């Protein structure tokens, strides 16, 4: 018995040691960001160049925008990279955020089944499309996770004039409370409509019968902002290293890396630091 115990403990110990020795970069920062930038593969693609240039390792925690801002507000991140202008304004107004810079933009698309029961295909008016979906009672998958996409979706419903919910009898409105990928998987599974950022949509590998149906509405603009933390409110955050990342993202090198990221020949994000909208 003792021999077994000793052998098992030795194995455990060895395993524990290997784990703690795996990561040993000089400096690291925590970037709270959105699921769209992770699921689309952008951050994994461009950050190694930053680390190579500066020696700073970036630990990306990908959450919805609402959660990412909350994480930073609690002091658990060194900077944020998110996409919900209204939530960002609030974050800055509450004194958490310092300098905000736009790094890239693309747009949102309304995707849905090729059969298109609500007949929204080919349209360029998101509010009108949402109205048609509600009128037809066609299945719609909602994020419901306080992400940037969730916030835009709720703003669009407000413009339609009603916020659908299961409680008010809208059985077609499925609030899944999950990330963009989970919402697209759900929509693909049941042939539903959903609102997606273009980056996640283009890189999503399980499209099944889904198709982008409505795009090109100026109201579907999607902008990504990097926000530094306020040093007075968050004295422990690694401000210098965070600033170097923020500087790099808007630099010529960073902007070129963002613009060069493609999936199946399509550019996913437009670098926009020079001409923010």
């Amino acid at each position, binding site marked *: *018995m*003792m*021999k*077994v115990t000793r*052998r*098992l*403990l030795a*194995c*455990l*110990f060895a*395993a*524990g040691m*290997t*784990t*703690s020795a*795996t*990561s040993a970069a000089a400096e690291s920062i*925590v970037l709270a960001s959105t*699921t769209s930038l*992770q*699921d689309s*593969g952008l951050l*994994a693609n461009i950050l190694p160049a930053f680390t190579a240039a500066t020696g700073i*390792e970036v*630990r*990306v*925690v*990908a959450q919805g925008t609402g959660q990412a801002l909350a994480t930073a507000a*609690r*002091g*658990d991140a060194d900077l944020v990279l998110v996409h919900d202008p209204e939530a960002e304004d609030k974050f800055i107004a509450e004194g958490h955020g310092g300098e905000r810079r736009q790094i890239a933009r693309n747009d949102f698309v309304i995707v849905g089944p090729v059969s298109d029961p609500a007949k929204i295909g080919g349209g360029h008016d998101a509010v009108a499309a949402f109205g048609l979906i509600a009128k037809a009672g066609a299945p719609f998958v909602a994020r419901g996770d306080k992400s940037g996409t969730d916030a835009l979706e709720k703003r669009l419903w407000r413009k339609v004039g009603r916020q659908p919910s299961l409680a008010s009898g809208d059985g077609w409105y499925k609030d899944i409370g*999950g*990330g*963009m*990928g*989970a919402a*697209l*998987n759900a929509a*693909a599974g049941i042939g539903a409509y959903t609102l997606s950022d273009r980056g996640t949509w283009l*890189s*999503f*590998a*399980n*499209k099944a019968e889904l198709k982008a149906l409505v795009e090109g509405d100026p109201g579907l603009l999607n902008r990504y902002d990097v926000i530094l933390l306020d040093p007075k409110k968050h004295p*422990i955050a690694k401000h210098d290293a965070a600033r170097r990342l923020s500087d790099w993202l808007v630099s010529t090198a960073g902007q070129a890396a963002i613009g060069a990221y493609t999936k199946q020949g399509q550019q996913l994000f437009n670098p926009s630091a020079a001409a923010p909208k």
Partner: protein
Amino acid sequence: MTDFWTTVGSGEFVRIVALSLGVSLSATGLAVLLGLPLGASLAVLRFAGRRPLIIVINALLGLPPVVVGLVLYLLLSRSGPLGELGLLFTPGGMVAAQTILATPIVAALVHRAMNGLWTDYGGALLVDGATRLRAIPTLLAMGRLPILTAALAGFGRTISEVGAILVVGGNIAGYTRTMTTAIALETSKGNLGLALSLGLVLIGISVAVSATAFALASGDRR
């Protein structure tokens, strides 16, 4: 399938497997260190509060991982009471979360096994003049295989768990990404085939760990 082989062949993947095993085995080791004496004491010793403690430990078998993750997140957050430790979004924090999940399992199963042995041999051991406390090592030696099963049950809980380590670890690429959080991520990218293949690798690893543990135990008996 090309996706699968590119992924499995990469250094990133090796790191993910090493981290999964490292975190889960460390947590299982700690759970055994805590749960073994606890479970044995509950079977052999008689003290005030023993029954309520048994009930609590058995109730904790159903501890929801995501709740453990959330509570630990609030404790380890820089603005939380244990923020100074800097354990949030680190493998150390993940080990803490999984230790909390696995300890009740080990303790409850050890208690169950020791209880049976104590009923059968307790009288004889006490007649031989041993105190209850001194009888514990003898009893543990007799219950070697059930104890191993308890440890493996704890390991099974930790290696398969995703709710707690996703919240506490943050699924950071190259740092806190494990097999289960990688599978969740690939699923959300729509790479369902790749996610499923990784799931099969994970099951294979579990089988290998279990087989190794049993081989060690039966080799020792000869």
